[in-house]
Structure formats: C-alpha cells, structure tokens
C-alpha cells in the first residue's frame, strides 16, 4: 500500500471496486450534496467529486469532498488544470490532504467554451500528465514543482482519466502509458457505450503491460432518455455512442426509456466485469445519483464495504 486510501485497499484486496460520481450543486446549498451523498452511502468504495464539470461553476470540489467525508464517504478529489495555476493546485493538494482526503483524480478539464463562463481565461498552466507527476513527486519525493522540499507530504492515491474512444485511436494507449509513468495508480475511463472499441483498448492495455501497473475502472453512464443519448452523442466532447444503442432507446416508449437506460448500464457493467484487466466500475449517473444502488443491485454488485 502506497497510501491510506480506502480505494487502494479495495483494489489491493482484489475486490471489484465501485466508484460513483457526485456532482456538487450550482450554489452553496450543502443539503443538496448531503442528499446525493446519502443515497450513495454504503454502495460505493469511493465517491468522485467533480471539479466544475463541463466548465459550469459549482461548489468547489474540495469543499464538497470535505462535506462528503464527514458523511462517511471516501472522496476522490477531482482536479482540473483549466481554472487554477500550479500555485493554486499545489496549495489545494496540501489542504485536501490535511482535511483527510486521500484520493485525487488529475484532469485537464473540458474547455471553458462549453460552460456558463465562456469569456473566462483558460489557465492550463499544467496539463493532466504534469499534474499527475506533481502529485506523485509530492507523495514519493516530498517536493513541489521546482524541487523545493515540503513539510508533510500528502500521500494521495492518484487517479487519471482516459478516453478509449477519442482520436487518434492508436494514441490512446500510448497516453495511458504516459499517465502511468507520470504517476497514475488508477484510471477511470470515459463512459463506455462502444463495447467493441473498449475491448480493443483493454487488449492493447494488456499487451503493453499496463493492466499490471494500473487499476482500470470502466466508466458507465446510464441514459435517462433517447434525447440524452442523442445529446451526448453529438454535443459532449469525446463521446462514442453507437447508433444501435440510440435506436434501442428510441424504440422504447418515452415513459420506459429511463428503465431501458438503466438496463443498458447494467448490461455494460456485466460485460466489462468479464474483461481481463478491468478492476472496477465507475458510475457517472449525472443528476441521477439516487439510481446508483438500483443499478449496482441489478448488476449483482452488493453493498459496501465488502
């Protein structure tokens, strides 16, 4: 064990790990977050707290992590490099660890032009790979960028994202390797709808030895409706939803589409579980966190901790 992370402990035990995304509210109402958090309690090994996802201003990930931790969750602090420079990022890493947060997911973040502050400056002082290395250097060498030593090194369990469906396709596994070398311990993938392409990605990851170095968690997002499916397929960066899945949703009457979306998510979990090298599943039920227990139960994944 490199860290005190409960997520790392779950992986070390060889248990199929479960994480879910919990998006902080657009405002200061902590009760919204607490309600979402409670619905996930006892069902996940760790909860991802998004950092102003899709560049929409929300409650800070760090504050939300702290609130969720007080509920009994094991939070994963998502950190994007879009909004903060290396001074702010490193400072927040210190603060997060001091507050008891043990996992961090290093991301670049969606471009600010997607969000509700389109005129903002995009910082991008670091990229996600450089942030990974920064967190690793803090943990393993007790230094910040530039090499100065620090008092009390944060020992984070370090995560990264990878999108098996983005282009150039042959580059994705190279980038996965880069992230592993830079410091990633675990990976959460983009939502999987194109199972064939995900299988190919995993087989490339196995062939390059990356599944021995990284815990790879398969990303799953239940579709609420065919409209959401179409929106994601056309408007969300880096999504790959095959037409057959959209058609399958479209064939179902409107009031039954949510059930069909959940069914697809359950089937996806069952399928990824069978793929060698998949160490867990990461459920991103966007503004639908209360459905996560139902999805997990149906997929035969029981309550936590195991």
């Amino acid at each position, binding site marked *: 064990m490199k860290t005190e992370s409960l997520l790392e402990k779950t992986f070390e035990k060889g248990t199929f790990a479960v994480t879910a995304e919990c998006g902080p509210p657009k405002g200061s109402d902590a009760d919204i977050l607490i309600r979402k958090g409670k619905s996930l309690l006892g069902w996940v090994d760790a909860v991802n707290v998004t950092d102003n996802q899709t560049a929409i201003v929300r409650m800070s990930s760090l504050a939300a992590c702290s609130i969720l931790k007080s509920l009994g969750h094991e939070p994963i602090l998502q950190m994007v490099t*879009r909004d903060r420079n*290396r001074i702010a990022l490193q400072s927040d890493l210190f603060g997060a660890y001091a507050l008891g947060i043990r996992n961090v997911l290093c991301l*670049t*973040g*969606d*471009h600010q*032009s*997607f969000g509700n502050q389109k005129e903002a400056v*995009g910082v*991008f*002082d*670091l*990229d*996600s*790979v*450089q942030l990974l*290395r*920064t967190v690793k250097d803090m943990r393993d060498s007790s230094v910040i*960028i530039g090499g100065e030593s620090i008092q009390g090194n944060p020992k984070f369990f370090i995560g990264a*994202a*990878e*999108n098996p469906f*983005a*282009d*150039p396709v042959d*580059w994705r596994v*190279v*980038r996965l*390797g*880069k992230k592993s*070398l*830079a410091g990633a311990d675990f990976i959460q993938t*983009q939502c999987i709808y194109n199972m064939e392409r995900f299988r190919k990605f995993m087989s490339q990851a196995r062939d390059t030895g990356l599944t021995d170095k990284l815990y790879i968690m398969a990303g799953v997002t239940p579709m609420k409706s065919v409209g959401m499916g179409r929106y994601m397929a056309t408007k969300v*960066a*880096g999504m790959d939803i095959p037409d057959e899945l959209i058609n399958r949703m479209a064939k179902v009457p409107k009031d039954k589409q949510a059930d069909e979306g959940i069914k697809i998510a359950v089937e996806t979990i069952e399928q990824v579980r069978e793929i060698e090298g998949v160490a867990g599943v990461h459920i991103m039920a966007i503004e639908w966190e209360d459905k996560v227990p139902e999805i997990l139960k149906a997929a035969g994944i029981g309550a936590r901790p195991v």
Partner: protein
Amino acid sequence: MIVAELKEFDEIREMIDRYSSVLVVGCDSCVAECAAGGTRETQLLASALKLSYLKDGRRKVITEACIDRQCVDDFIDVIAEQVPDHEAILSLGCGAGVQALARVYQDKPVIPALNTLFIGETVLRGVWTENCLGCGQCKLGYFGAVCPVTRCSKKLMNGPCGGSIGGRCEIDPETPCGWDLIIRRLTAIGEIDRLAEYVPPVNWSTSHSGGPRRVIREDQKP
C-alpha cells in the same frame, strides 16, 4: 506576421466623434498582408468616414496617410508634418503600431481602428491562422513544427485530450486538433518516438506571464 481585423464601423465612429480633425494612418506591413490596415484599407476607411459625416451634415477633417511600418520610429517620421494639423490619430496599425504612434506623438490621442488578433500565417487567400503565441521557449523541433502551445486549445504538452474526434478540436469542429496535426506530422517524418517522453511543466516566465517583455542587444545599439 501580426494578423488583425478592422473594428466595426460604428465603434470606430463613436471613438473619433469628439475630434474635429482626424489623421487616419495605415501600416503597410503585416496588417496590409492580412488586408486589414494597408494603404487600400486606409483609403476605404477614410472615405467611409468622410461619407458618413457628410451624410450627417457634420464638418470633419479626415486625412489619410500610410506608413511602411508603424512600429519603427524611422518610418513613423513620415507623418510628422501632418500630425500637428489634426486633433487625433486613427491608427490602422496593430497594437504595437498604435502604442508606438502614441509614444512618438505624446500630445495626440491615438485611436485603434483594428482589433489585433495573433501571430499567424496566410494559409490561403483570405484565410489566416494563428500558430505562434510568442512563449519565448520555442520547442517546435520536438513537435514536428506544429506548436502545441498555440494550436492545442488547452496548451497540452503531453498528447491530445479526450475531446479530439476525427482530427477536430472539442471546442469547434472547424478547428483542427493541434495534437492530431503533431502526431500526423511526427509519423510522417519518422519521429513519433519523441512523444513517449514526459514533457515537464512549461516555464511560462518567458511568456507574457513574466510581464511585458523586451529584448536588449548591445551590438545593435547606435
């Protein structure tokens, strides 16, 4: 070269409205190449302004002039005799040209007629693209002569983000993914191995993050 665009006519007119005489000054270097502020554009803008004031029945002295390079004092001298006869200068130079005129003619208001955009190239007649941010640490040799700082919307140094689809950037399908270009180019020249290496954080202190920059060359001083 510096690429710029003419501002909206109404914005220009509003800015010069308060002056009774205006010297409209073009620049025949970069902004002429991008058809924003050369002799031809200067004449067109001056004529449009004259017509517009004439139509409103307002007297306004509008004179046009063009300088080879608004950003170099030796060239700026060309308009020295015309300046005193005008209340203000309307510059069709880039931001550097506007500020150079203001430094030389300290008692004159200098109004920009252009929005200065970027350092770029003419890729086709009528098409200019941005490809240098002037970061002060050129690493083009590592990236197949495609700049990740400029041509990746997120300035990524370690490969494409998850939003690159079909060679297009996530921010706009009209924008090519800079990393797709880098990978193609390095593959074509047989140097794709360069990308496996970790690229450490960029030193931005040589860019504008380090404050306004200057170059001093003793060997070039008079």
